[in-house]
């Protein structure tokens, strides 16, 4: 009964490849997010979607394309992977997305680009 799940847990790939990370939440939340956590553990928002519509795109290269087929899913596709894309990517969801709302995070996907 995992609240926010993402696959795969680990992803190792070569530069220039295209890869996808899948995310699903079973909490019935309206808003989903993607975050990137770098090697210094700084966690930064990349995208947020509310009811399948893009709300925030935080200066992320257009090689990153989120896709939300429905409210429960927000997948992240990355084209032409670069060394600097290596990081841990977290999917999250929340009900309202403001104030005292709680973010529920997935377990993360560790992406390593060789």
């Amino acid at each position, binding site marked *: 009964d995992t609240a926010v799940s993402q696959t795969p847990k680990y992803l190792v790939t070569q530069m220039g490849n295209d890869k996808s990370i899948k995310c699903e939440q079973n909490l019935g939340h309206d808003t989903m997010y993607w975050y990137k956590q770098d090697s210094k553990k700084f966690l930064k928002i990349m995208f947020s979607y509310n009811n399948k519509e893009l*709300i925030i795109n935080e200066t992320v290269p257009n090689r990153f394309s989120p896709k939300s087929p429905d409210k429960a899913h927000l997948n992240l596709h990355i084209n032409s992977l670069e060394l600097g894309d290596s990081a841990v990517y*977290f999917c999250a969801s*929340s009900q309202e997305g403001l*104030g*005292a709302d709680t973010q529920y*995070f997935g*377990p993360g996907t560790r992406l390593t680009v060789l």
Partner: protein
Amino acid sequence: TQLLEQSPQFLSIQEGENLTVYCNSSSVFSSLQWYRQEPGEGPVLLVTVVTGGEVKKLKRLTFQFGDARKDSSLHITAAQPGDTGLYLCATWTGANNLFFGTGTRLTVIP
């Protein structure tokens, strides 16, 4: 410029010791949250503080929101190895945008 500066960045203490970590900013916030992230997992919400001067307790953890709502502290009493993790403060900077602090990595040595 970081919106939320946390200190110390790293902290390593012996089991049973007390500690305080800080989250500071020059901005005023309507609310502030603390999350804990254990290795290999996503962050988990510990508490939300919304009122200036507010103090909340969660077992051995005490959270305080500054009177001016610009800063917050987390105090842990008698730290346990299970407290080891990355502690992150965060605030909603607008609709659907949760901004995280720089983090404090705590290690409690048995």
